[in-house]
Each structure stands twice: as structure tokens, then as C-alpha cells.
């Protein structure tokens, strides 16, 4: 159903613009999360889905240019932010994970309570983006031997002892 080798130029054209709007939407969802349905997780997965769709349209190199970082690194950064938010209060003599709030008035978005919970939520956002894209990219590429080297380079979690998983050669991967 999804043939990763077909890269449609029309789809690519549209998706670039759609991608832009989705990103804005994701940021909105993320920021409103504390007071309305939304939050880091939902924003993250929306953003990740847009990246996944983008991936269908673009070639691996283009995709790499857009992403710039290995998704796993993004996810790890998210983890660090979340852990950091949790650990920070300890140094001020507070219990682990205590959150502090700052109240801000931002035009367009209205009353914002910016505080450490946002940082944790941002960590969640990054993790979800990184994890979802990493999972789908690696899995969709895994039957394709030449793209697999990319996956290998990206992850960095491999060495000479690893050999990419390749589908049995005699049976062509076919769509249903």
C-alpha cells in the first residue's frame, strides 16, 4: 500500500505547503495544551505525522536536509529536557519534579502560564516527534537495501558487526 520508492513530485509540492501549516497548527496545539485539549504529546504526533507524509513525497537526501538531525537525537534531546526539568528543583532545595509558574500576557495567544511544565511538555513533544519518525522511517526503509545504509548512518547505533535486515530476495515485497 505504501511504496516507499515512488516519490511523487505533485505530492511533494503540496506537502511542503501543507507541512508548513501543520507545523503552525502543532505549535498552537502545543501552547494551548495547558488550558485546552492538546499538549506536547498531541502536538508532537501531529508534527511527526506531517513528517511521515513528507517522507513519502521526498527522497531520502531531501528528507535528511529538512530534518537535519537524526530523529533519535531529537528524541534524546527531549529526554534530556524532561529529565532536566525534573531534576532542576532539587538544586533549589525543592522536591524532585516541582514545577514553577510564570504568568505572561502574550498578544494573539492571550493569557499564558509559562512555566516549567511547558518545558516538560516540550520534552514530550521532541521525544514523540523523534520516536515516531525514527520508527516509521527505519521500518519503511528496512526492506530497501540501498536506503538501509542511510538508516545505519543516521542511527549511529551500529557498527561493523551489524547487517541490515533485508527481506528475503526471492520474494518481492508486494502490495496487497
Amino acid at each position: 500500500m505504501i511504496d516507499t520508492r515512488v516519490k511523487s513530485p505533485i505530492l511533494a509540492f503540496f506537502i511542503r505547503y501543507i507541512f508548513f501549516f501543520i507545523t503552525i497548527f502543532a505549535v498552537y496545539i502545543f501552547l494551548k495544551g495547558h488550558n485546552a485539549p492538546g499538549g506536547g504529546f498531541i502536538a508532537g504526533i501531529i508534527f511527526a505525522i506531517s513528517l511521515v507524509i513528507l517522507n513519502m513525497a521526498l527522497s531520502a537526501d531531501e528528507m535528511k536536509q529538512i530534518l537535519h538531525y537524526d530523529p533519535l537525537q531529537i528524541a534524546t534531546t527531549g529526554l534530556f529536557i524532561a529529565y532536566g526539568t525534573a531534576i532542576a528543583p532539587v538544586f533549589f532545595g525543592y522536591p524532585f519534579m516541582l514545577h514553577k509558574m510564570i504568568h505572561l500576557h502574550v498578544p494573539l495567544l492571550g493569557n499564558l502560564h509559562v512555566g516549567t511544565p511547558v518545558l516538560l511538555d516540550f520534552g514530550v513533544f521532541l521525544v514523540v516527534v523523534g520516536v515516531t519518525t525514527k520508527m516509521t522511517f527505519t521500518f519503511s526503509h528496512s526492506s530497501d537495501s540501498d536506503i538501509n545504509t542511510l538508516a545505519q548512518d543516521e542511527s549511529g547505533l551500529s557498527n561493523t558487526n551489524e547487517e541490515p535486515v533485508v527481506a528475503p530476495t526471492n520474494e518481492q515485497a508486494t502490495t496487497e
Partner: protein
Amino acid sequence: MAIESLLLIAVFLPLFIAPVVGFFARSLSLNVAWIGIGTAITSASLIGRIIKLTKGLPFVISYNWVPAFDLQLSFLVDGLSLFFGLVITCIGAFVLFYARFYMSLKDENGRFFAYLMLFMFAMLGTVFSNHLLLTFLFWELTGVASFLLIGFLYNKPESQKGSLMALIVTGTTGLVMLLGILLAKSVFGTYDLSLLIAQRDSLVVVGALPTAVMALMLVGAFGKSAQFPFHFWLPNAMAAPTPVSSYLHSAAMVKLGIFLTARLFPIFSHNPYWGDIIVTVGFITMLIGAVYSILSHDLKAILAYTTVSQLGFLMGVYGLGHMQLLEHDFFHILNHVFYKASLFMVAGIVIHIVGTKDIRKMGGLFRIAPFAGMATLFACMAMAGLPGTMGFISKELMLETLLHNAQSHGGIAWVWVGTIIMSAICLFATSLRFFKTLFMGTVPLDLKDSLHAPGLWIQLPPLVLASCLIIFGLNPELLGHALAGLTVSGMHAIKMSHLALWHGLTTPFLLSLTISGLGVGLYTLFERKHWQMEIPKQLRFDTAFNNGLEGLATLSKRLHSWLRLDQSQDYLGIVISYIVLMSSGFILYYLPLSTIRFDWIRLEHIPATVIGFVICVFSIAVVTQKKWTTRLIALSVVGFFISFYFVIYRAPDLALTQMLIESVSLILMLLLLSKIPKGMAIKEEASVYTGAKKRVVLLISVLSGFVMMIVLWFLLSDPPATKLGDYFIDKTNSLAGGSNAVNTVVVDFRGFDTMGEISVLVIATLGILGLLMRWQGPTEESK
């Protein structure tokens, strides 16, 4: 030095010497035995010194070890322990001396002598310990040490078999004894032996639990002392090198059971079953051992069975509980120690000379090994109970007591008289055979060339030991003087002075004469038949034991496959069925189903009803549809409608999340299905259940839904408690600074869960990466 330090050194010296021996074995080779001999003599002399100092009064030394478990490092110094300590160390010295000249190992001397030292330590510990748990501890240590020694020539199959048998039998009986000990603690309130002995008059030993304590502990003693029905391990333990046999089977380890019985005697002898159990077991053992000994033809097996017989005799002494016998228990034990140790040593020498164990192929060795022959002569005389030896006196005493007993009690007591007479006849014949076949007559032709004379030194220990039999047999008072002061509380003070060589023409003496005559007769009978009779197969407990082990293996294999533990593909069905059946059982048993409240569907529920209907229909479609694609579509419909259902439940965050997650899962599932060829899908449709299996699967699945339904129904019958939720609603704005309570719970109130959740996501990605990058690790080291 104080008694404490003397005793501690005497007991622990062998333990500390063991590694030293192991260490020096490389440079000193066999001469390392001298270190061991020195140790044994030192310990023996220390014990001798203690005898002088204590003057026969019991003495307790205690140190805390594990007070949390009431265990003290507590030693009881009294006549019994000192006597056994002396036997262990003295015979140990003889055995080590013998081993010095017997063993011819290249690189394993150190191990051998270290084991022997360890063994000596374990036995000393057992006899001196005053605390039942400590006794058990050393008891098991002797078992382990004997396992290592019996299996010392480990690459021989019979070594493995013999050591396994010894370990399992003594280990199992030891565990039973542990039960007895633990039970004793809860019945009598203490593990302290000296305390128990001191309170023996006020202790209630009658009744179910005390009897159980006694029986369980006696099982331990029976196992160690190779009493019926555990007698079979001893002959099989003969796979050990001969010095070990001589130490294990004559002097020491097998006597531990006797020791324990003697220890327990003052405590339990008032129990009505004490005598019955011990006498029955002991005398049956005595008869079996004697009969089997005459039916065996392996030199060491013959000796092993005579040992079994004699152990039964010694055990029986404590069962009869007759004061005159008990007063001389040390005499009986020493008699056996001396003759059996020397006979084993001789057997080792002989086997070494002739290169075979079959007694029927031997003969005429006196000229080659005259000292060994002398030793055998003395020892066999004692074993046969001929006048002038310790064996004679021992047997006379026993006969006299039994006759006395029979006259006063009648009935079954006469059976025991018959038993001892029969065993004595067999033993007489065996002794005669042993000496005659080995040392008289002519050397068989096929052995003539291979014979080589043994050294003088190696013949010395058996000769010295055997001479003791004669010396003390002729002058029993001598022994009485030597053992004076070894009073055992609750049992006796040593009075050997009235032991005499000649009691006059009494009934026992006449019986002795009869026994001798019949023994010669039996011998002649067997000699005529060329010793062709064997132990009947069905009465060989060791084969039964081995068959039992094999049967156990077969049984466990059957059970294993019957429970389908070897079938990886069935685990899931079994576990799920189990969980479902159990849970439905609980529900039917515990939940009062009649109290269920039914909540009718009202008008405002219509949207929920429609969505619920769709979910149900499509989830059933996932099951019933044939094509994977259809199933997948049905599945995603279920997923999306569940997010609608979340909307009904006023959960906008959940609905969004569910929808998005459903999409990503769908992408992943599509990716999976796109990688599996279509042909496979069609082929696999055939592999569903049919018939009865299908019905079972259906039943289990319907039952599982039923269980969860009932549980939920019950939960919702009462309005659910919402303590936490109320607080969150209340504080989400004021304390967490957000109006979306779900979000504040997720990032603030319970932010730690979210941290865990994102960690799970990252780890799952790592797992996926690991799966998609096939690891070609270093093959030979990957385990």
C-alpha cells in the same frame, strides 16, 4: 591452656590445615600426608588433655554465631563427644599413614589429603556440637566431604554412581533430620542439646509431635549409618579409594548415626516407640548386612555389608536400652572400629597386589604379605567373635542381654535372639571365608606372574589396629582404665572393670559355640557350591534406587511434555486459558451475581449506543473476516470509533490522542503487511482451528469477555470513588496553573508518569532499531 582453646584448636585445626595441605602438595608430593598425620595426632592429644582436665564432667562452650536464627557455635564436651573425637582423630592418623603409602596419584594428592582433613573437621564438629542446628550443619558437611571423597576417582562411572547415591541418601535423610530439628525447636523450645539432656526428666517426650521429632531425627541417623532401608548406599560408596573406605565406613562417618542415637538416647528413651523403632530397624539391618555379606564376592562389598550388619548391631544396642549393654557401648564401637579399619586396609593392600576385587580369584597371599595376613587373622577372629578378642566379649554381652530380654518379655523378643544368632552365623562364615580365601591355599595360576609384595610400612597400620583387638580382648580392664572418665550424662559412667574374658559356661557361651559350629557348616556349604550364589536382584536396593532415578527422569519427561512445557507455541493458549478459567472461578465463587444493578439505556444515550454498536460489530468483523486487508480496515474503524467514544466520555484529549495514535499504528501495520507477500496471506487462512479446538478457543474467549464484563459491572454498580479526581479539578487552576485538568495531571500532578512514558517510547525505538539491525556478534562468545 583453658579447655575452650584446647577444644577449639582440636576441632578447627584440620580445617585450617586443609588448604595448607593442598598448597604444599605440589612440592611435598605424598609426604604432605605427614602434615595431616601431625594434625590428627595433635588434635588427638589435645582431646586427651581435655579428658584429663574435665575429669568426665560435661562442659559447654558457647559463642554467638547467628543469634537471629538462634544458632550458637556451641560445643558440648562430655564422655560421648570426647570418645568419638578420639576415635576420629586416632583412626584418622592411622588412615593418613596408610594413605601415605597407598596412594599413587600424580597431581591430585593435595586435593585428596585436603578433603580428608576437611572430612575430619566435619566429623569432629558433628560430635562436639551442642546445638542441634550446628550438628546438622556439620552433618551435611560430612556428607559433602564424603561425596567428594567417594567420587574422588571421578572419571569412573561407579564413582559417580556411588557418590550420587551417598549424597542423595544422606542428603535426603539429613533434610528430614532438619525437619526434626526445626520441629524440636517449636516443640521443646530450644536447640540446645545439653539443655535438653539436663531437662530430660521434665521434658514431655510422649505424644504425636515429640514422637515425630524423634522419628524424623532418627531417620537422619539411619540414613547416615546405612540402616535399613538406606543400607544400599554404603556398598556403592566403595568406589572411593581404600583409605577413604576405611575411614568412612569403619571409623567415622557411618558411626555418626550411632553417635546421634546415643546423643538422643537420654532425651527420647522414655518415648514408648524409641525402642521399637530402633530395635526393628537395627536388627533387620544387622540380618540383611550379614546375609548379603556372604552372598557378595567383591572384596570391598563384603566388608561393606559386614559393616552394615555391625552398624545394625550397634544401633540395636541403643534400642534395647539395657543398662548393661549401654555401659559398654564404647566397647562395642571400638571393637568394630578396630577390626573394620584394619580389614579395609588389608583389602586395599590385597586388591593392589592381585589387581582384582573378586574374592573368588584370590588365594595364598600370606607369604607375600605376612603382616597383613596377621592383621586379617586377628580382625576376622574379632568379627567372628572368637574367644580372646573384643568381638567375643561384645557378642556375649549382646546375647546375654537379648536372652534376658526374651525371657522377661517373650514374644517378639525371641525373634531378635534368632536374628542375632543368624547374623552371627553369617558373619562367622564370612570371616572364615575372608581369611581362608585370601591368605590360605595357593595363589591362583593366572595371578602368579603379576604379584608383587607390598611394602612393610603399608602393612603396619592394619596390624597395629588388629592387635588392639587381641590386647583389649584379653585384657578388657585395660580399655576400661583407658576410657575411665568418659561419663555420658543420662547414660552411664564407664565401668569396664567387670568385663571379663571368661564368664563361665553360660547360655551365651553355649550359643556362641553353636554359632561357631553352624558358621563353619555354612562356610563349607557355600565352599562346595563355589560361592555361586548372588544377592537376589529384586532385593538389591541400589538397583531399585537407580531405577527410581531413571523412573523419575521418565516421569518428569512425561509430565513435562504432558504439560506441554516443551511446546513453545502452546504457552499462550495455556496461560490465557488458565487466567480466564481461574478468574471466572473467582467471580462465580466470590461475587454475589444477584446484586448486579442494571442500567437501562435512555434517550440521551443514543449516540453512545450507535458508536458502541459500530465498535462491537467491527471488532467482531476483525475476527470473522477472511482477508487481512478487510480485517485491518475493520480494526482501524474500531480504533477511530473508540476515539469517538472517548468524546462521549468527555475526554477531548484522549480522543485526539487516540485518533493520532491510531493513524501511526495503522501506518506501521500497513508497512508490516506490505512486506509480507500476498500469497502468504491466502495460504495462512487455512491454519485456523477446527472442531473441538475451535469450540474451546471460542469458549475461552467468550469467557474472558464475560469475566471482564462482570467485574466492570460490579465496579460500576456503586458510584466510583473519585477522591483524587476531585482534588485535581479543584486545584488545577490554583496550584497547577492550567484549566485543562487532564493536561495538568499529565505534566504536573503526575508528571513523573509522563517522564516514564517518554522513556518507554525512546526505549521502544531502541528495541526496534535493534530488531531492524541484525546483530552479527562474535559467534563463539555470544553466550
